[in-house]
């Protein structure tokens, strides 16, 4: 696909402002938490909304404006969280998210001089080190020291645990990988990792629009996973999960494995009786749905299919309409509810219409102010529930929550769902 292939979607935008808000009034619980789009919530000019970006793309295609630093600023001041896409699709067959992403691919290719330095740096890190943190490959195994984890470069297993760059390399986040492996071992799971040979899922490259690098890494990873002969690829990182499950199918090779987030897998293990949460964890919590575990994990193929009219001018696309309703919403809640003593209080914006944490889409690195404003909005929503702790299943969300808490004197704590589960399992 090319940007011009989405011209119809641009022309069919009615600039109604729905993409700025939660779509259905009955989902709203208050005036306070009605916003859906972090970018327009911060910047206010219509151009920052999804509709505004579609208009900007059409304007570029029609030669009314050219790529400029301002166009790039608007385009990349967006977490690509997909909320706008859901809101619009409640009433239309329009593609929004795909247009925003294709716009970035176009910008990355045609406007190299205005790329943002932090994005270039991350992409170079992936190219040089196979990870986003500019760390030597060998460090990927540090988190697993002393744990029973198969090396799938040497032996076979049913499950590949795809740890992800952040859980394996960020010293503050390694505990999640460690806790996950401990739980897998307790449940008797036959699993292993790729160790130092694990490569970045390429989510950051995908998000900033470096399609070439994304395609290359995705194909390499699919081939590797296929060659391992594993039944499942389980990831702890919502970013990796969303990309592998939802975006890898667009690159071509058949994926001969099931993709699961660790929280889904752990939920299955609990239901099968292989893990028994029994110790009380007395805590009131609220759960934050990561975008890439939720609405952005519905498989999306960038295509209009073949469009034809019925009833005169009703456009019929021969591809499924993807709204994000099939994300992983229930498993994390089931896991949390299975822990005795946990009191789960929902935030107003949740599941497919959850407010983004503000970290994704290259925003945290290039536009930290937007990331900070967005996470503070979420922390405020969490605080309004009365919960003591905000729980998630994504390292990017959790890191941004930590930063937001530090910057706002919030008394909230942030933990990963796995951190709670391990406290409860004997």
């Amino acid at each position, binding site marked *: 696909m090319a940007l011009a292939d989405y011209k*119809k979607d641009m*022309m*069919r*935008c*009615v*600039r*109604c*402002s*729905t993409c*700025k*808000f*939660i*779509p*259905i*009034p*009955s*989902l*709203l*619980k*208050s*005036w306070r938490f*009605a916003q859906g789009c972090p970018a*327009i919530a911060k910047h*206010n*000019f*219509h*151009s920052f*909304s999804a509709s505004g970006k579609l*208009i*900007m793309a*059409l*304007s570029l295609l029609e030669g*009314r*404006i050219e790529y*400029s630093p*301002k*166009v790039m600023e*608007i385009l990349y001041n967006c977490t690509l969280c997909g909320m706008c896409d859901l809101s*619009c*699709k*409640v*009433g*239309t*067959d*329009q593609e929004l998210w795909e247009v925003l992403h294709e716009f970035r691919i176009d910008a990355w290719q045609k406007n190299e001089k205005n790329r943002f330095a932090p994005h270039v740096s991350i992409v170079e890190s992936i190219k040089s080190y196979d990870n986003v943190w500019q760390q030597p490959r060998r460090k990927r195994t540090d988190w697993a020291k002393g744990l029973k984890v198969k090396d799938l470069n040497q032996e076979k297993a049913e499950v590949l645990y795809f740890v992800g760059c952040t859980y394996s390399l960020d010293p503050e986040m390694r505990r999640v990988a460690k806790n996950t492996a401990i739980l897998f071992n307790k449940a008797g799971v036959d699993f292993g990792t790729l160790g130092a040979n694990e490569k970045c899922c390429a989510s950051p490259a995908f998000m900033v629009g470096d399609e070439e690098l994304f395609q290359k890494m995705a194909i390499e990873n699919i081939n590797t996973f296929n060659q391992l002969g594993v039944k499942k690829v389980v990831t702890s990182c919502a970013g990796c999960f969303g990309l592998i499950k939802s975006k890898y199918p667009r690159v071509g090779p058949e994926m001969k494995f099931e993709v699961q987030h660790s929280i889904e897998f752990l939920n299955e293990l609990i239901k099968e009786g292989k893990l028994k949460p029994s110790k009380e964890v007395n805590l009131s919590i609220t759960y934050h749905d990561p975008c890439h575990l939720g609405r952005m994990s519905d498989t999306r193929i960038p295509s209009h299919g073949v469009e034809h*009219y*019925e*009833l*005169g*001018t*009703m*456009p*019929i*696309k*021969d591809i*499924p*309409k993807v*709204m994000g*309703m099939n994300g992983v919403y229930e498993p994390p809640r089931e896991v949390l509810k299975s822990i005795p003593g946990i009191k789960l209080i929902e935030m107003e914006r949740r599941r*497919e219409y959850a407010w983004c944490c503000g970290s994704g889409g290259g925003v945290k690195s290039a536009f930290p102010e937007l990331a900070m404003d967005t996470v503070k909005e979420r922390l405020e929503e969490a605080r309004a529930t009365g919960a003591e702790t905000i729980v998630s299943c994504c390292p990017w969300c959790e890191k941004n929550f930590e930063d937001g808490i530090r910057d706002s004197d919030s008394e909230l704590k942030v933990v990963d769902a796995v951190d709670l589960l391990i406290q409860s399992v004997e």
Partner: protein
Amino acid sequence: MALAPHIYKMFSNIVGSVNISDDPAILESYTFNWLNEFNNLCAPGKFLPHRPAAVLLPGSTEEVQSIVRACNRYGIKFKALSTGYGSHSLPGQPGVVVLDLRRMNRILEIDEKNKFAVVEPYVTWAQLEAEVIKRGLFTTPVQAGSQASVLANLTSGWGMNTFGNHGGHNGRNALGIEWVLPTGDLLKLGPPGEWFTGDGPGPSLRGVMRGHCGAQGGMGVFTKGAIKLHHWPGPPKLETETGGMMTAYLMKEIPEFMEMVIPCFDTYEQMIDFFYQVGDAELAYVLMRVGSAEHMISLMGATSNKDIYEAFYATGMVQALTEQMKHPAVAMIFANSRREFEYRKKVMSEIVQETGGKILEVMTEGPMKELMMKEMPVALIGNCTLFIHHAGGFVISSGYMGTNESVVKHMGIPQEEIKGKWAKSGKILDDGADSTYHNSFENNAYVYMEMEFHYDASNPESVDASRQCITDERNQRRLEKSGFEPNDIGLTCGDYEKSPQQRIMDMGPHYGNFHLWQERIKRAFDPNDVSDRSWYGAGLLMKDAEVSKK
């Protein structure tokens, strides 16, 4: 037309440097809108030829006043918008400074006892509804959708509302209003410091402020407004779950004292009789007609067009329903108690019988019942009307306000022929010839009817056919003498080769020369002619002698 640097700096000093921009990437999004394809300045394209001089984001009434006063001082035209849905929210001429009121988004007060709320311009219907429904109150959301501005509907534009039978038209729900006049002076409609009414001693200014259609941003800026709220007999929280075809959400539980009644009638006369009797008995919150079954099905949007087509058309279901449902009406009953609920249902049932209505079996069981009882309320109560844009193109005829008889005679019947011709052309959506919204207000004190057309906004041939269809309809309308065309969207779209001001010039003589009065008012309120008048009146085309003519 760029602002001079010192003027830009002056505006920047008022709103702050992050709240002003004249960058083309920002300005472009204020040149594109729904219905631009009917605007003679850009049709069949989507972009206006001129960009605003700058876009400003004021955060308070004081900032708005400062901007407007500066515009008067330097002879700069301005135009304010809020959620900004439709061509008429954009400037109609070059060099205009746009005031995007997005930062003014607070609900200032909800007076539960006296049933009104005071809002700023960017409060949406959904936000207001979320706050008032838990207090046992309800709003009258405009059919532009729940994401639209409450204040814009109160002050600046027409727009019908589904709950109008109970709650009335929002032009009449407007109470106290804070208004920055085109001169920058502040005018408060209603008693000082009070919001419960928009009138005070002396002549009412509410008519000058908006009349029936609103000034489309051509008479200054409205910065605060009070809206009448209504009693809500439903639950304090509307719980939904995912699913369904209309809005992707279903009611989790059907409210205990809610009933949806959809009788069908053999003739328009029977249907009109039903409207009158339900109005007289003050029975329904919603009383409307949504055209034929074909039209009703075509309104679904949450599911894909493909699924709608396969589920309803390819199976022959719509065709069968259309045969049986000649003139369907929709009534929604709410009650506060079991006894009241039983009473209302009983009276409704008797009226249906007396007026010759039939409740089709298909509506009382299976998927259609599910659709009507669990999905339709989400759309109606939540007023989620974005499902009307199958391909980005939805437009209505000029609309017609009057008695039941007059709207049916002058719009309903003739339009079936006009719409039918174009629907069969293959260039607009064939959603049945009978696609009229027919909405009752204030227990049938008056009704409003409009015929709608769906087209593909990305297909110039389809846009063109839609324009021609509207022009045919408009020409037909002008032959009539009873009732009137109230509709701002009609102004935007009709007679597409003309400018909005030319359309008003055409309309004026048919409707009491309102355009002359409008221009006199405009001149009195905006002596420096700075409030962009492109969508208000016909003054751009008028000569002084014509305006003062008796």
